Each structure stands twice: as structure tokens, then as C-alpha cells.
């Protein structure tokens, strides 16, 4: 009230002899009350931050929603050249970080990636930049090698990829069963990649130290991304009939080999163990996973774990296989012991608990590198070979990082792979919006899954994909959704509709600095800063 005196502000004509008010309070510049003021800042979406590859998911989804499907595809493939494959097998760290996760459901970025990737199987990559005149050799055609090859080839670098197996794909091909990633999809995706980007692919060519030296002589850089070798057997378990390593088992099953016996035990808690068990089930075998810790501690993806249980895989937790012996009939006898947990979380072998006789024992535990090339300043490494076993996303990221490093060294700096440093996060603001959980893609019922390597997860339809993509909030980017405007008690948020895209502005003359705009922004793009 102190701000209102009779003589200021008001036109004399508005003064009546009676207590009649006609003048708007806008004359009161209540902005002078504030101690803090809202500021809009572009930020990085939490999903992008969580993605090892730094894919700007919101960005390509937005293009998809706007009907620009090709643009969306190319935007995504510029960072991740294998979306049809990763859309099926990526652990989706992005979904765990999604702002919507606890409100309704995280945006199904994997299913969307698969949708756009499948579309992209028939869409060539953009024509590469003009030739740079230098070349790179890539050892290994797994995700790391292919990611590097794609980035380099797109930049006009001549790339030759050497693969020791008969077909490209690395772990994507031999480590991931067909019910998760059909071989045909992988093959088509890699074909499209190498053909449209003009990458030389040489299969059945293992690289040894001597050849590496030759390659270093011929190329500006060599990238070693050959993956890892076989896994060691756990202590107390010797090689022998009926004892398999995880990857070896998968490879032999994929090759159509019929393994003797009905009942198999799988040691391990990672994806390799789950894959082995599920593959065995599909071959009509009984599979028991034996894991030393609790179910929540299993490194395998929760969805895989759930599907395995649905399909009839048995999981024995808190159990250690202390010894295994070959017995009559090619069978294997296992001594099962309790796992003892120390206060620091480490596990040691406790007392004997049970004896189990199986027809086969699979050791699906960590792989080790089988090659140690001499270091060289033009030899870079990537993928599992570089950092040990990790996800496909991390492998792709490593390959891409290595490629960017090569380009940088040749004076061809590329755009940074990450967004602004600040991460946008304000999931509490979603509470005012009605939940919109969307639809999960169809899945083959578990009864049908048990005898088939048919892909478990089905695709999203085009319509479903658009609806799902539209659920993406585009965290870190103002979309002029209007929530801040709605919740401003002082009409100090103005949505300016004059441009192509609406823009949010603040009326600092009237903003009292309450902060409700910042609190109400689910995209987290409004910060309150001290008002000077």
C-alpha cells in the first residue's frame, strides 16, 4: 500500500469522488520486491548425460515427432551407427535417468531406437565428406570398431576393418542370442553401414603383431578393438567333458551343435550367464543359474533376468560352486557351498550346503584379453579390449571417442559429444500432469519363447512410435509448454508467440521472485539466481 499515493501513477480523470478504482495495478512495479529472479538456461537432459555415447535422445525424438523421420535417423546415426541393434540390446541407462520414470513410465527410448533403426536398414548413410587422403585400419568389427569406422568414414577417411571371424559384429553377433538380436537384422545393419559409407571390411583375417606392424606402416592410425578372449574357469573347476565357457557355449549352440544331456548349471550373474541359460532352455534343456550374491546384485539387466525366470530358468542365489568333478556317464558333480558375506560386501566360501549333479556346467564369468600388442602412438584401443567387459553403449562410445581423437590429431576437430554441463532434473514438477504411461511393445508369451529363438520383443507401430516419442519432455530445453506461465501468480511469465517457435520471457518489472516457475518446470530449465 505504501507504494500507492494519491498523486502518483494515476490519471486525474480516473479519480472519482467515490471509491471507484479503474486503473490497473500494473502501475505497481512489484518486481522491486524480489530477492531472486528466474533465469532460463539450456541444459543437458539426464538421459543424454546417462548415455555413454552422449546421444541427444530428445533431439532426434523431437525430429521424429515433427515428422522428420529421415532427419531423426541421420541425427541419431551420426552418433550411434547401429540403432537397429542397440535398440534391441542396449541396457538403456537413459531410461533409468528419465524424468518421467517415477511419474508414469520412462520414455521407451530403446524401442524407439529400434523403430528408427529398423526404418534405417533400408536408408543409406549420408554421402561421406570428401576424401581426406589418409586412412585408418580397424581391428575388430564389434560395436567399438564399427562406431569408429563409421565416424571416420563419414569424415572422409578411408577405413579398412579386419575381422577374425567369418562375419562382422563381434559380441553383437556371437555374444548375444538371436532371440534378443536376430542375426539377419545385425547383418543388414552392418551391410548398410559399410556399403553406404564405403568401408572396407575384411573377414576371416585375424591380426597378429606382425600384421599390426604392417598396418601401422600403411595407415595413419590403427584402432585395436578386437574384444576379449575366452573366460577362465573358476577356482576348483577343471576343464573336462561337460564343462563349457559361456561364449563358447553360445557359439556352439548358435552353430546348431547338439550338446548332450538335459540338465545344465550356469555359474555367473551377468548377461552372459542369463544368455547361456536362456539359450539352453530354448534347446529344451533345464538350466540353473548359480550366483554368489542376491538377485538385486546380479549385473545382468533386470529385464533379462525377469524374462529368464518367466521362461523357467532356475536361479540359486547366495551359493558358490566350490568344486566340480567329472562322474560316470560324462556328468559333472558340483559341491555347493553357502556364500558368506563380510561386512565390506566381499563374499567368501562358507560351509557345504548341497551336492548337485548336472549334465553340463557353464562358466559364464568374466572374459580376459588374449592379445597384448606393443603400444604405439598411432595405435589406439577401444571397446572391451580397452576397458574390459562393458555394455554395447560403452563400446560404441569408446570407438567413437577414438575416431574423434584421430580426427582431432589430424586437425579435424569435431563438435563436442556432450551438451551443456548442467543437468536438467525436476521430476517433482510432473505431479500436476496426468500420467501418460504409453504402451510397451508386444512380447512373445513366455510359453512360446521356450522352444524358439524368435525375437522376444516386437516392434512399435509407426503410430505407437510417434505417441511414445511425443512423451519425451525434452528435458533441458524450453518447449514453451506453459507450466511456468500457468503457475505464475503474477503474470510475470510471458509466452511470446511472435516467432516461429514460442519463447518464454520473464517480466522482471512484476516478477516477485517466488520461484514457482522454476519449481513447476519439469524440463528443469529455469533457475533462480540472486537479484542484484
Amino acid at each position, binding site marked *: 500500500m505504501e507504494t500507492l499515493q494519491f498523486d502518483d501513477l494515476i490519471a486525474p480523470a480516473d479519480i472519482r469522488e467515490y471509491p471507484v478504482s479503474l486503473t490497473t*495495478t500494473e502501475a505497481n512495479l512489484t518486481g522491486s520486491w524480489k530477492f531472486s529472479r528466474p533465469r532460463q538456461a539450456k541444459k543437458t537432459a539426464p538421459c543424454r548425460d546417462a548415455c555413454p555415447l552422449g546421444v541427444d535422445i530428445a533431439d532426434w525424438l523431437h525430429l521424429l515427432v515433427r515428422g522428420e523421420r529421415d532427419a531423426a535417423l541421420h541425427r541419431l546415426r551420426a552418433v550411434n551407427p547401429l540403432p537397429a541393434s542397440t535398440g534391441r540390446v542396449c541396457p538403456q541407462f537413459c531410461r533409468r535417468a528419465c524424468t518421467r520414470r517415477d511419474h508414469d513410465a520412462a520414455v521407451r527410448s530403446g524401442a524407439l531406437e529400434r523403430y528408427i533403426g529398423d526404418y534405417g536398414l533400408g536408408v543409406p548413410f549420408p554421402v561421406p565428406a570428401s576424401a581426406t587422403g589418409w586412412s585408418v585400419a580397424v581391428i575388430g568389427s564389434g560395436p567399438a570398431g564399427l562406431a569408429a569406422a563409421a565416424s571416420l568414414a563419414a569424415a572422409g577417411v578411408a577405413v579398412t576393418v579386419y575381422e577374425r571371424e567369418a562375419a562382422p559384429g563381434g559380441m553383437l553377433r556371437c555374444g548375444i542370442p538371436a532371440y534378443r538380436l536376430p542375426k539377419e537384422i545385425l547383418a543388414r545393419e552392418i551391410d548398410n553401414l559399410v556399403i553406404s559409407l564405403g568401408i572396407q571390411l575384411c573377414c576371416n583375417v585375424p591380426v597378429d603383431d606382425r600384421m599390426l606392424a604392417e598396418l601401422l606402416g600403411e595407415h595413419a592410425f590403427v584402432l585395436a578393438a578386437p574384444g576379449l578372449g575366452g573366460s577362465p574357469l573358476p577356482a576348483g573347476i577343471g576343464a573336462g567333458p561337460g564343462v563349457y565357457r559361456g561364449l563358447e557355449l553360445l557359439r556352439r549352440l548358435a552353430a546348431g551343435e547338439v550338446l548332450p544331456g538335459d540338465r545344465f548349471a550356469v555359474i555367473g550373474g551377468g548377461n552372459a550367464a542369463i544368455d547361456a541359460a536362456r539359450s539352453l532352455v530354448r534347446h529344451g534343456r533345464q538350466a540353473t543359474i548359480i550366483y554368489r550374491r542376491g538377485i538385486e546384485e546380479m549385473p545382468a539387466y533386470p529385464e533379462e533376468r525377469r524374462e529368464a525366470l518367466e521362461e523357467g530358468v532356475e536361479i540359486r542365489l547366495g551359493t558358490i560352486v566350490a568344486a566340480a568333478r567329472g562322474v560316470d556317464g560324462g556328468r559333472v558333480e558340483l559341491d555347493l557351498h553357502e556364500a558368506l558375506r563380510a561386512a565390506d560386501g566381499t563374499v567368501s566360501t562358507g560351509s557345504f550346503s548341497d551336492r548337485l549333479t548336472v549334465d553340463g556346467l557353464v562358466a559364464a564369468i568374466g572374459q580376459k584379453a588374449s592379445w597384448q600388442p606393443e603400444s604405439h602412438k598411432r595405435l589406439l584401443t577401444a571397446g572391451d579390449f580397452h576397458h574390459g567387459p562393458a555394455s554395447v553403449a560403452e563400446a560404441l562410445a569408446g570407438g567413437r571417442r577414438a575416431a574423434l581423437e584421430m580426427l582431432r590429431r589430424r586437425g579435424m576437430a569435431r563438435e563436442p559429444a556432450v551438451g551443456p554441463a548442467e543437468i536438467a532434473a525436476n521430476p517433482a514438477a510432473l505431479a500436476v500432469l496426468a500420467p501418460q504411461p504409453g504402451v510397451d511393445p508386444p512380447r512373445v508369451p513366455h510359453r512360446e519363447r521356450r522352444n524358439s529363438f524368435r525375437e522376444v520383443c516386437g516392434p512399435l507401430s509407426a503410430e505407437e512410435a510417434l505417441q511414445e516419442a511425443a512423451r519425451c519432455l525434452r528435458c533441458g530445453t524450453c518447449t514453451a509448454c*506453459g507450466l511456468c506461465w*500457468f503457475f505464475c501468480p*503474477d*503474470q510475470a511469465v510471458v509466452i511470446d508467440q511472435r516467432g516461429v517457435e514460442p519463447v518464454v520471457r520473464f517480466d522482471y518489472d512484476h516478477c516477485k521472485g517466488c520461484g514457482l516457475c522454476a519449481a513447476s518446470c519439469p524440463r528443469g530449465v529455469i533457475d533462480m539466481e540472486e537479484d542484484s
Partner: protein
Amino acid sequence: MLWNVTTAEYLNSGHMACPGCGASLSMRHALKVLGEETIVVLPACCWSIIAGGFPTTALSVPLLHVPFATAAACASGVRRALLSRGREEVTVMAWAGDGGTFDIGLQALSGAAERREDFLYVCYDNEAYMNTGIQQSSATPAGAWTTTTPAGKEFAYGKKDILEILRAHRPAYLVTATIACPEDFLAKFAAARKRRGFRFIHLLSPCPPGWKIDSRDSLAVTRLAVDSGVFPLVEMDDGGRLRLTCEPAHPVPVADYLRAQGRFRTVRDEDLEPLQRRVDERLESFR
């Protein structure tokens, strides 16, 4: 625009509400739904100040300031005058605080409800006499600190059940709402606009200084009132029963609501269980 809210504004900026005031935001959206053919009747309450000093006004619809106890009576007079002027389509809205509704204005409110006066009465309840500096009203909940309940309002006296009082009058429309749950709020004002007869909307309206909360948390805390069941969103059905219009979206214990506010600082942990039980029973009665 979001939730089909009109871009037309009937609340002017430069009004005198405290930062983060729920009452000003509620008025803004109530008027957006009711539209320009609305006359507001305003007894003494925070809004007497919010509305701006002579010769300015924060509303671009007609507004009549009236004495504390008279909102419902004055609104009756306005409504009858409009009838005689042939302006039946105009909505008359009495807009009063909890003091002007639960306490000093209750008699006039009861009278108007009994006469089936054709207007909308909105109580924006911030649960104390905030305009005079946070003194307890009969809408102040048990355990709440005010300047006249320095140790917290005694548990023997809960908040007066204004809904039951109104329900006994069988109004044409009776609901609770809060701007912290906007879709429900907007739908209820839209429904109230269409009805004829005596209509009552009870709004829970956060007051950052009176509740001792940060202004930017005012709506989040109010949502906790809904999610904890302390302030259920209900409407009276045709049979005269109060029913939930929204189940708490993310149920939380009453403690979460109380502990989010400085005004409940004196509530002891052992007081929480009986409070929780009271809230649960009441919530269940609306299912």
C-alpha cells in the same frame, strides 16, 4: 494452450499478494474459467489488499469490496439485482478467506445457502487469519502454530468441518479443490459455472509466510496435503454424499505433509499416529 486455459487475463500483474501466494494464483485461474461475465464480491481477507489500493484494481472484472461478515449477503444482493436487470448469465462469485467463511461470515453463508441463492461462493482457505498476521481461525488445523497458538493449535480442536456444514444445506454444487492440482481445479470451476443455485468451492490455498514454507515450495507442499489425504479432493454427488474426485496420486504419510512446513514444528512424533488415523478414516469415508 496448456489444459485449454485461455490466454485472456482477468488478474492484473502488480497486485499486492506475497510471493508464491496461492490465493492470487487461484483467483487468476478461477476467473479464466468463469470469464469476463463475472462479478466478484470480496469481504475482508488477504484479497482486500491483494486487489490493489484505490484507485487501482487488480481485476478486470467488476469487484465489490464488502465488510468481513457479509460476503454471502452482499453476493445475494448483487445476484438479485442482476436478476431484476435481466443479466442472469452473469456469474456472481463471493471470494472469501477462511476467517470470512468458517468464522465471521458463517451466518450469512448459511443464510444464502438456505435461500438457494444463485451464486458461487469460493473459500480460499489458508488456514488462519493471514492478513492480520497469522492468528488462528476455526480453519486452522490441529497442531499448527499461529501467533495466537504459539504452542500449536490444541489437538482437541481439529479444523472445523465446513464441508459437512455446507453439505447439510444441500447446495447445488459442493467441492474441494486446489490450484496445486490444476486439472481438477479447472474442471470444478467449469462445472460450477454451468450450475445454477448455491455453489460452494473450498480451496486449499498455500500461504508461504503463514505456513512457514519457501515460496517456491508452496504448490508442492499443497500437493502433499492432497497426496497425504489431509485435504481430499471431493465433490457432492446427487445423493448428497461426498466422494473423491481424485485418489491421491502419490500417497504419502501425513507426517510428510506436516514436516514439510515450519508451522507444524511443535507437532511431536507421538501425535502423528492419531492424526494419521483421523485422516485415513476421513479419506475412507469419501471412497
